[in-house]
């Protein structure tokens, strides 16, 4: 449940940053607003993505074997 919520937050932040970037490039969103969205959403999105990916308690293996 917690991992699903983390993925949801990561996707929401990614979508917000994508929309802000595209909007700013198209001139529909003020650059200051787009920058503000990135400043708020990038840290939260990154940590939420890591939280979704990280090993949970009680799991036997890690989800990345190509190290």
């Amino acid at each position, binding site marked *: 449940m917690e991992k699903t919520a983390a993925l949801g937050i990561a996707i929401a932040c990614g979508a917000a*940053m*994508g929309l*802000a*970037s595209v909007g*700013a*490039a198209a001139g529909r969103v003020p*650059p200051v607003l*787009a*920058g503000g969205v*990135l*400043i*708020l959403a*990038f*840290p*939260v999105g*990154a*940590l939420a*993505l*890591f*939280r979704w*990916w*990280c*090993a*949970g*308690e009680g799991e036997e293996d*890690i*989800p*990345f074997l190509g*190290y």
Partner: protein
Amino acid sequence: MIGELIGATVFGLLLLGIHRKVIARIQGRPGPPVWQEILHTLKFSFKESWTPRTASRVLFVGIVLVAIAIWVAAFQVVLAGGSLLILFCISMLHKIVEHGFGLSSGSPYGKFGGVRSVISAASEIPLFVSIAGIVLLTGSLLISDIEAWQAVHGPLLYALPLAALAMYLVLLSKMPWGPFSIVESKEIVSGYKTEHFGIWRAGLEVCNGLKTSVLLYSFIVVFLGPLPLLWVLLLMLGIQVSLSFACALTPMLAPFDSVTVQSLVAGALLLYFLALGVVL
């Protein structure tokens, strides 16, 4: 915008990996692969994460978000050609963030690291002195204005080599395993980041990658002017390798020696710029 941000973060991590590799080769070790810092970020991001019992949970997690956010802001400022003063204030703010990292965990190693972060804020003094020289010459603090000035008069590096030297010293002070890296020296384990593990350390790695890119890019923009992207990347690599040499060949200074050296450099530069101001 988001593409540049992710690209800058990954490139910064790659530069930090190259930093480790160069230091290792100079010291006669094979060293890790150059993409080691990227792997580190991935590795920490899937490790099990926890918050120490002694930690202030809100600060422990929140400070990671703040650390990334301030460098995203710095990246936006540099890209938009904003004020150098904001950029350098963010650089100073990073010291407070390091202090927050150290205090949030409740670990004595973290606390020592945090206290040393405050002491090492002296490393920012040369930066503010270099600003004085830039303003004297260009008449503006805006990066876009400084770029425009350089388009007419040539790179600031030739006009103000000592200001460039001051900023180079600041870059050196931000590099891990350098002469001024007193915040993470081995006698205090990993300093302010000792207890931040798992996804919290991965977040810190993201911050470090972005910070490295922003600082090197701002040095190039301020002292060499606007250049094509390929040149910028190559110059960032070149400056990073030179910093790695400096870090590998210089022993880490004791905390008070570190502050003394940086303060003396700042004092000497201040005298130079005062004289320059009188002449101009």
